[in-house]
């Protein structure tokens, strides 16, 4: 239940199909390759100077100034040398002591959650949101409604509701909300995404009242001494509400794309990932791209379950088995068209560790979600399907992105790649997204097969205490083991899995450096990395993982001028202060796409 998704309307679909006909699986390919390098006579449009330039380049990690033109970085070096390139039209961007970094690359996240999130109100506790009391919830919703002015009867949806952060020491109820919001149905989604709190208007719209029985496996919190629902609904009781949740139409979503991308640009991210793209979402993104709505690059990973439907639609004459692809399929991947690129195919092998639905080889110490003994979780797809699909993707030259949290799920993808005959020499860079409970011997297998992990070090903070409890200190200490991976020569990315946790490169850096839980326990002190390594996993190594290291991820001549100005240098700062870092301005291919308001 990670996200709900937009559906492109049916009549719309036909239109989209016509404009992208031939885009997927076509012999002509998806877009044009970007060749590195800029022509020698490209005019210098901007020069950045006056602050440290953190290039993230091996040979020259620090520089004084950068010249940019034609969307590319033209030169990097000492200030005097770069200023000598200035021509009459050149704009000088004064850093005034702020730091210039390469634009961040989203190692893994869900871009299509962004347009939805920007139309919702954030009722999370710190550091994700502002809420520490029931009163805060009311004030936050009030402010949101004053700004957005939803029509009476229109849903107001909030996310991140978490009773454990409330100083009131109790659940929020409809009685807390009703006096303030009588005319709007309100739904505050629980931080687990497995439940919500409704106000009375919300209950009425969903037809839930004192006569509604509590379904098996669900919770309908009732008012004391009565059968009247109090507000909170969880699990199976929440499913029908979730299934019927209002969904914005395509036009509304297109209108939200500006604000959605600002979530990324305001944090210095210039390449976003849509890391589990369903067919209607892909159609939406193709349209958004072709109509020029994308200001940052979006890397899309079509989800494996929708591959048969995609083949049926885009290669109607192709005759093959369920998971077979046309020979030309690879041509649809790896190239940008109007800022949209398909990078590879997303597979999902297990669930989440905090939800106890990941797939481990050893049982959890605390049992299953319902107290089941000897609980190891379960795979999401049969191993035979994984083997067959991976063999086909390898055969057709398509990169695999496999979501795997538990070590049993990780074994499944290692087995499948090995069975397909993959070795490091193939240079495939198959990505194991999350790799959270990877074992040390599995990291060796990654090296042997040329696989690469995208870690989620934020887990050490957000769920670190839960992992210690569920898996014991030893396994929890090796969660997202970035140091061990780099020791083996693996290149890693780090991610926030937006919108599971916020897009915040500095939170990601901080958690990779500190690995400290909410309660202050350090998970695996030996797996802490230095600031430069933490930064590499968000820039050059994240670029490498999606085969874009020639054009992105560091500040070097010939690369795209994807840059971010940050008020202080993240390599110099005390990691404890990392969350205070402010993005001042973000550039995509030389053009300013975000500027902090003064």
């Amino acid at each position: 239940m990670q996200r709900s998704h937009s559906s492109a309307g049916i009549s719309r679909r036909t239109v989209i199909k016509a404009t992208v006909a031939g885009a997927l699986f076509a012999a002509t390919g998806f877009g044009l390759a970007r060749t590195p390098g800029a022509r020698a006579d490209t005019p210098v449009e901007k020069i950045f100077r006056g602050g440290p330039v953190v290039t993230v380049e091996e040979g020259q990690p620090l520089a004084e100034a950068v010249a940019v033109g034609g969307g590319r970085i033209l030169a990097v070096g000492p200030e005097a040398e770069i200023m000598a390139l200035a021509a009459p039209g050149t704009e000088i961007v004064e850093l005034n002591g702020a730091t210039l970094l390469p634009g961040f690359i989203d190692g893994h996240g869900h871009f299509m959650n962004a347009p939805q999130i920007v139309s919702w109100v954030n009722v999370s506790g710190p550091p994700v949101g502002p809420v520490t009391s029931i009163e805060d919830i009311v004030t936050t919703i009030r402010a949101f409604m004053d700004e957005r002015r939803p029509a009476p009867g229109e849903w107001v949806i909030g996310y991140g509701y978490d009773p454990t952060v409330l100083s009131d020491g109790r659940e929020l109820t409809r009685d807390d909300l009703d006096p303030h919001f009588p005319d709007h149905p309100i739904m505050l989604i629980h931080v687990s995404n497995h439940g919500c709190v409704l106000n009375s208007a919300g209950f009425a719209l969903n037809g839930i009242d004192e006569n509604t029985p509590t379904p098996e496996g669900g919770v309908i919190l009732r008012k004391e001494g009565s059968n009247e629902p109090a507000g909170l609904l969880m699990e199976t009781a929440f499913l029908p509400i979730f299934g019927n949740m209002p969904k914005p139409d395509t036009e509304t979503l297109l209108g939200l794309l500006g604000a959605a991308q600002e979530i990324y640009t305001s944090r210095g991210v210039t390449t976003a990932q849509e890391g589990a793209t369903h067919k209607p979402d892909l159609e939406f993104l193709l349209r958004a791209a072709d109509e020029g709505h994308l200001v940052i690059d979006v890397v899309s990973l079509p989800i494996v379950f929708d591959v048969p439907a995609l083949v049926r639609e885009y290669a109607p004459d192709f005759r093959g088995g369920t998971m077979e692809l046309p020979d030309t399929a690879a041509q649809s991947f790896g190239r940008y068209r109007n800022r949209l690129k398909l990078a590879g195919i997303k597979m999902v092998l297990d669930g989440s560790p905090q939800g106890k639905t990941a797939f481990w080889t050893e049982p959890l110490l605390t049992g299953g979600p319902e107290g089941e003994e000897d609980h190891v979780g379960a795979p999401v797809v049969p191993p035979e399907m994984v083997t067959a699909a991976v063999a086909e993707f390898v055969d057709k030259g398509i990169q695999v992105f496999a979501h795997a949290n538990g070590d049993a799920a990780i074994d499944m993808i290692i087995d499948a790649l090995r069975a397909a005959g993959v070795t490091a020499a193939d240079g495939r860079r198959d990505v194991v997204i999350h790799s959270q409970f990877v074992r040390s011997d599995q990291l060796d297998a990654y090296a042997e097969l040329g696989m690469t992990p995208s870690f989620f070090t934020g887990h050490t903070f957000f769920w670190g205490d839960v992992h210690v409890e569920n898996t014991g200190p030893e396994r929890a200490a090796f969660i997202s083991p970035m140091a061990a991976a780099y020791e083996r020569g693996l290149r890693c990315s780090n991610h926030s899995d937006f919108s599971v946790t916020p897009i915040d490169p500095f939170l990601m850096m901080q958690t990779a450096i500190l690995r400290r839980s909410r309660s202050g326990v350090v998970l695996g002190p030996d797996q802490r990395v230095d600031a430069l390594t933490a930064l590499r996993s968000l820039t050059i190594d994240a670029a490498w993982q999606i085969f874009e290291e020639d054009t992105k991820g560091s500040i070097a001549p010939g690369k795209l001028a994807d840059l971010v100005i940050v008020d202080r240098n993240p390599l110099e700062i005390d990691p404890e202060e990392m969350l205070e870092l402010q993005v001042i301005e973000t550039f995509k291919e030389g053009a300013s796409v975000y500027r902090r308001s003064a």
Partner: protein
Amino acid sequence: MTLPLTVIGGYLGAGKTTLLNRILTEDHGRRFGVIVNDFGAVNVDASLIANHDGDTISLTNGCICCSATDGTAEAIARIVKRSAEFDHIIIEASGVAEPGKVARNAAGFRLPLDGVIVLADAEQLPDQAANRYAGRSVLAQLRQADVIVLNKVDLPSPARLEETRALIARHAADVPVLETEQARLPYALLFGVGRGAAVAAWTAGPEAAHDHAAEYVAELLERGPMSRAAFEELAQEQMEFAIRAKGHVALSDAPEVRHLYQKVGRRWTLVPDGGWDGEPSRTRIVTIRIREDLPNHRHARQNMWRVSGAPFASGVDRDRTGVSTQSDC
């Protein structure tokens, strides 16, 4: 409007798709709303498709097939909105899913569970149960079944078939097993007689039909009001081996309350179901069980039967085909 829900589970290759394809396209007179994981896998004859609309295909026999690749909750919500168009809802659980959990999630939508049917591959099951990744899921599926359909029994050697049966008996001892080929099953064993949830349609059935070729018998059991203990004893004696049973029960301690009894395989429920509405307060239950006088029907193991299952669409009044009033006719 509540519709009975059947969950069909089972591992890869067990025949779920074959079974769904039969249900979707044969002329059985009942309208199913079916939620599948990918209807690309369900090879519906194009001539039977009335309309193809994004995530949904409508079939000429009144069934619709709805894809759940984007989320089962959303698919159920879509289909519940159209519940007036159906008599029954089926959800296909994915290959490693626990069908019991799927059923429970559907309970959130207030869909009463009719039964969990789990298919198993007679040849592959022992290997699948031993698979280091899938084994636990395969065994959980068997445990969560109300009825197990052991499919493809024509493929394994006699020794292998016995191995498979022993495995099922070990892990799901109390679950009835129907053995078949190509997922052929008498329709009434899967979904009962009559339409949808209506008890009247069920109990009206047995009077009418009589078919010597049928593999099962449907019997009407009638009694006056009795105590709960007496009823449970009767159920144990008379219905232990019934694959399905359904009807109204009159209990002597609450004669004015009509109770609904339903049994699918090992699952049974007895719940209050309104008053008698002027009808005499009598217990009236139809049971469906496998005929044991046919060769090969009963195996050495209790609770396992071989059926050959003509396609549903073999007669005119399918709901009643094969229903007879006596077991010895």
